[in-house]
């Protein structure tokens, strides 16, 4: 017994407990340094070039129409113009296709200075209500757009749905209308799982204040793709949202007429509205920044690598040179 106790007190002789596990001890030698910088350079510059060329292949038409769509007579009182329900707000914009655009061409609306990411805004919805027909009373985050004045629950409730973007675009080229496909613009998962196919809008936009677009009460929420897109709150104050897709190519130098119904009020907070037509490549839409960033980082690394090579050639420090040890350096200091 005693013997057993004694041996059990003795530490175990394992590689781990003795801290002698085999270990890789990398040392940052000049070779490593130069190799890693060159590797980054060699990897990044082509990637950057690829990204840049991809971005270059994207054809993008951006038309800011918030100012142009206000008649001159209303230029100082744009708000009253936009809030007047009797006013015909149709306005015609002319777009020019700079390069051939191959289908699918995506139609976006772009809002600026619109804070969809404001906490109050982000929270103001009821996921449960959107999903579940029985949960129409689940509106606790939706104030003040939770109940109508006569205390009926609003479906979909909350500020996000209430402020639904409601400008519409009609495109035509050479007199012929271009069909904008409004299907398949929302995330599939949203349509399938987050918005109920048996949930229908109710009491929407019936309150005292009218926010944005209205919804067809006959169509279930899962098919209200505009709403679904809008409800995916944007991360930044400048954002685009898909409006639809064009499934025909647009020829180079073609002139496109856009008939914009300018309903949405961005004038109050001075936000801009833009109509965007864009093709995509593997990196998505136009994005020069990515390519430039890649190329400049790659270039920087190559530059550093060259400098180090030069340094090691002209002022080398021998690996493990003992003269750099503190006790050998002290007399000099």
């Amino acid at each position: 017994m005693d013997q057993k106790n004694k041996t059990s007190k003795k530490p175990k002789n394992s590689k781990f407990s003795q801290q002698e596990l085999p270990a890789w001890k990398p040392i940052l030698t000049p070779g490593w340094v130069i190799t890693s910088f060159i590797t980054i350079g060699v990897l990044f510059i082509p990637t950057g070039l690829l990204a840049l060329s991809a971005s270059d292949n994207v054809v993008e038409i951006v038309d800011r129409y918030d100012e142009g769509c206000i008649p001159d007579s209303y230029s100082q009182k744009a708000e009253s113009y936009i809030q007047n329900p009797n006013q015909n707000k149709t306005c015609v914009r002319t777009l020019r296709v700079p390069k051939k655009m191959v289908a699918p061409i995506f139609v976006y609306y772009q809002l600026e200075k619109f804070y969809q990411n404001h906490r109050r805004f982000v929270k103001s919805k009821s996921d449960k209500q959107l999903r579940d027909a029985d949960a129409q009373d689940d509106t606790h985050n939706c104030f003040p757009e939770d109940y109508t004045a006569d205390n009926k629950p609003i479906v979909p409730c909350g500020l996000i749905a209430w402020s639904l973007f409601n400008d519409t675009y009609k495109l035509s080229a050479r007199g012929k209308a271009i069909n904008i496909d409004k299907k398949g613009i929302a995330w599939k998962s949203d349509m399938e799982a987050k918005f109920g196919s048996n949930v229908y809008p109710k009491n929407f936009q019936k309150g005292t204040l009218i926010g944005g677009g209205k919804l067809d009460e006959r169509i279930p929420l899962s098919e209200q793709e505009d709403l679904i897109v809008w409800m995916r709150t944007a991360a930044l104050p400048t954002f685009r949202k898909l409006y639809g897709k064009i499934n025909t190519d647009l020829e180079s130098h073609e002139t496109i007429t856009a008939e914009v119904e300018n309903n949405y009020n961005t004038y109050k907070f001075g936000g801009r509205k833009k109509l965007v037509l864009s093709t995509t490549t593997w990196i998505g839409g136009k994005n020069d920044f990515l390519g430039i960033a890649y190329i400049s980082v790659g270039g920087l690394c190559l530059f550093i690598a060259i400098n180090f090579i030069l340094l090691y050639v002209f002022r080398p420090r021998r690996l493990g040179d003992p003269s750099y040890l503190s006790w050998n350096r002290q007399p000099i200091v």
Partner: protein
Amino acid sequence: MATHPSATTNVHTTKKKKKAKVKWSNLYTFSCLRPPPPLNQSDFGHPGFSRVVFCNNPGAHKTKPYKYPINEVSTTKYNVITFLPKSLFEQFRRVANLYFLLVAVLSVTSLAPFTPLSLIAPLVFVVGISMLKEGVEDWHRFLQDLEVNSRKVKVHIGNGSFVDRSWKVLRVGDVVKVNKNEYFPCDLLLLSSSYEDGVCYVETMNLDGETNLKIKRCLECTLGFDEEVKFDKFEAKIRCEDPNSSLYTFVANLEFGDKDKDVDVDDNKLVSSYPLSPSQLLLRDSKLQNTDYVYGVAVFTGVDTKVVRNSMKSPSKRSRVEKKMDHVIYVLFFMLLLISLITSIGSARYTDKKQTAKEWWYLQLLEDTDGSFDPDKPLISGFLQFLRALILYGYLIPISLYVSIEVVKFLQAMLINNDLHMFDETSGKSVEARTSNLNEELGQVEMILSDKTGTLTCNQMEFRKCSIEGISYGGDVNKIVRAASQRMNIDIESYRFNLDTEDSTPRDSIEMHEICHDEINEVKNSVLDDAKSMRDVGSSSIKGFNFRDERLMNKMWVHGSNVWDMMMFFRVMALCHTGIPVENGEEIGSHKPKYEAESPEEVTFLIAAQEFGFQFYKRTQSSMFVKEIDSSTMEVEREYKLLNLLEFSSSRKRMSVIVRDEVGQIFLFCKGADNIIFDRLGDSGRTYQHATTIHLANYAEDGLRTMVFAYRKVKDLEYEEWSSTFAKAKATIGPEREELLENVSEIIEKDLVLLGAVAVDDKLQDGVAECIDKLAQAGLKIWLLTGDKKETAVNIGFACSLLRHDMKQFHLSLSREAESKNQLKAMKDEILDQIEASYQVTINEKTKDDPFALVVDGKALEIALRNDIRDQFLQLAVNCSSVICCRVSPKQKALITRLVKKFTGKMTLAIGDGANDVGMIQAADIGVGISGMEGMQAVMASDFSMPQFRFLERLLIVHGHWCYKRISKMILYFVYKNIVFGLTLFYYELYSKFSGDVLYDGWYMLMFNLFLTSLPVISLGVLEQDVSSDICLQFPALYQQGQKGILFSWKRIFGWMGNGILTSVVIFILNVNILSSSAFREGGEVIDISHLGVITYTVVIWTLNCQIALIITHFTWIQHIFIWGSILCWYIFLLFYGALPPVYSNREYKLLVEAVGPAPMYWIVTLLVVVVSLLPYFIYMVIQRSFYPLDDHVIQEMKYGRKVVVDDEMWLKEEESSRKPTHIGFSARVDGKILYLKDQLYKKRMFIIKSISNSPIRRSITINPLENRD
């Protein structure tokens, strides 16, 4: 005294052992038990002196005025009820914890940006773990108390019968019987002992660290109660002072019905009062020795005992790194407040009605009710936003850092405990980290304050060498000389011969050339090995006798030339002592007795004498019996009548016995310190003085304790005359008695004949010398604090190379006059003069590179540590290479430690083994207790315990270094990590009108510290090694990185903070710009909050884990799994989270599979941003390593770099030069000796050259040919 029958006539049937008959009181000349000063009786009953003890009547102490605490002692901090509130209070004294408590409270309100669980859980975890630790530690203390409290002691229960009771039920007034080698359970009044005259021997190691035994003696009136049955009738009353902490005072009176003459005559007792003194008080925690049993009555119990009153509550220690970490946390707090303020001001501004609130129609702020965005009350909204921001940016304050540090330190401690190199086979114990929160302190120690007995030495004496008639026996030359001369390739013997005898012809053939380094090491090692093996051999033979010399052993000495002196030498050894032989109980059949004496040295001498053939086997009151070897090698038994014993005292420094042999000749045998004895030699007795002096010097340099033997034949007439004077002096009562006795003794202790000297080794523990050597090379200073006397301390100083002969020693001590006058001013002046004189010397000779040593005496220390001269003293002490303080009390030890810590600001480590070291252990930054010896107090108070002193080397130089690096790196990384993460949250606010929206999902936040970044940090904190353990030991200079604190300097801390800020900016700016408005997938989809969140988070996780991979220099499979596994874990988490139905996963539903996963953009952004964010650090690292490498970098390169570089010679050379130049330690002494020898040789050579060139012969040789040519 006359009332007692003499020992030889009184024969008790119960006592069988002879030694019990010896009455020490008759033998001693200088009694340390002087009659106590007359007491002012009126003191009793007044405040401070109100205690009354009814002896043998514990029942009387059950009611109020006399109810005293029972003997249960508790050292625990908490009990069942107080644990929760008390430990919670302790926890929330940490600012960070308080902050997290606030956050946790706020998190249940609507302000919380994320789920309350993610805020409360870590807090509960952190506080819970810390409380659990406290609880476990307290539980251990409780168990320890339980063990002590339930020890058994014999207690009188009436009718003269004694039964075993546990300590804790002991009450004041109980009569107890304590047997030999048992500890006293409480403070007892000594009633009687197994000795006839009521003395007993007590070892007070645990109280004051002194190893020699102290004599206690009972009052004469209680002498009779020396049998169990007699206590039936015992009754007495003690009036005494209230409990206090002074170990050396005891003011009391015993009121006792004197039944001395007629025991059985009842009740007509005459109650008389006897004054008591400290010499009747047996203190708890001291131990009965050399006495079979004592009876005593409990006076102070439990918390009233002096030792408990002396003990301090163990302070909770925090490491310096952790204290600095607090400041880092304050900086982070400041940052937190700053960005929270920015957020709240921004938010208030935007919420304000007058500003822009109206314009954001889609927010309908005017309708708001929850107040956080109330345009009418922007200030209140701003404040609420501020509170929210405090929670939101809470990631800046790394709560998980505390958890991680606890975990890491626990694991580090586990590794320390499991190190096989620090396992002691003999005791079966290994080094144990008892508190894990000081691990990294081990890497920063600059001063070691060490106890002597039991720590450096084994408390075991060995007879090593002797010099008789000027011839040295028992051993080879000094090992230092040997090592030095081996290094110089010279023949030791001849060299020594040259030095010893000046007139011999100098050898001019000595060649000096440096031998190469590994040879040096070999020599060194062999010397050390040699020393070790010598020890091993010694311990296996006779304990206390490590002597081999054929000339003396096995009766060979009788063939020597001067047998008479030889015999006298052995007689001094066998007769001049206070020892007693006891039957050897352990080895049955052994004819050799064991000895017991006041000091272990005497025992050693007796054993040695026995080995040489002079066996002291019996002592009676008046005679000593010795079996001697005759010159014809026959064994004869001789009886020596013991006439007088002139006792040893610290001022006399010698001891003599006067005996009359069987023929009737009177001899005085004397032993003592060399200078004292040499002064008293007669002209005819100096034959061997020169040779002996040389031997003594050699012995002393080896650290052996020396003593000189001399004798004198006293003529009958002279003795008679002296004897009467002496008797007169002895009868004197009063303060001048001692002086008188000393003077009388001096009359007879003169005209001595020198016989020789002996050298005793206070055996050092294994490896102590080597360990001190290494520690000194690593730049550690070692101070020796011991309760032992100066001579012993200095000897040990030499033995473990803290002192050397070419050192300038400063001795601070009080002169006798000053001491006797006891005037503070005079004493102070005297000490101050000494300090200043010494200080001047150190200043003037600083350039000469002469080492200094300071030896301070306890009394002098007491003066020197007074407020007004303390600084001068410490300044001097710091200037000296080694400092030895002797005769220091436990309190002084603690005081010195505290002062040194405060004065120098250096990290101190105190190491000791006894209860007397507890104060020092608690006062030092790190306290180390030596386990394995008996007595657990030091270990209980310590932060680390180890079975052997030598493990200190590995503990500090390897584990300390590692732990320091690990913890520093870990904390810095943690700060970096949390800044990176926390600030990205802040930047997002700039883009969301400071509304306090969170970029990341709540679960990401929770996962961040829990799984995704925690394990790599822990692997860094537990397993990181800059260099392997053997390199740590080879390059002690690496240890100085910790002493200088370069790894956790503010420069580094701010550097890492800056890096964190830079990284967070890079990550956020790049992400926001790349993922701006345009589509990020070929399908034309644009990003929303959840996409930006997940991409940014991915980048953060990659960056942080890659960053730690850049920091780590030691990758085992564990690190690989943790680092790369963490990244993988993130994707797996995302996959699972996205697969949950949207009820749980919300925005993150199918995020990876559907949205970001298939997008090349996601991956390409990750690569770019991770590389860019790591680039600044990488470039810094490259520049540092290339142009300003640290020592560990270069050594890594030397060791692990290309094989070509590992060049043995260079390696060894650097190893050599990495050692800090030091004045102490074995190697330093060898170096010093070499220097000295070279100097000597040079002088000799010059002398030879001179003498040759001046000699007429040479002149004739050199000049003549020239003349001839002319």
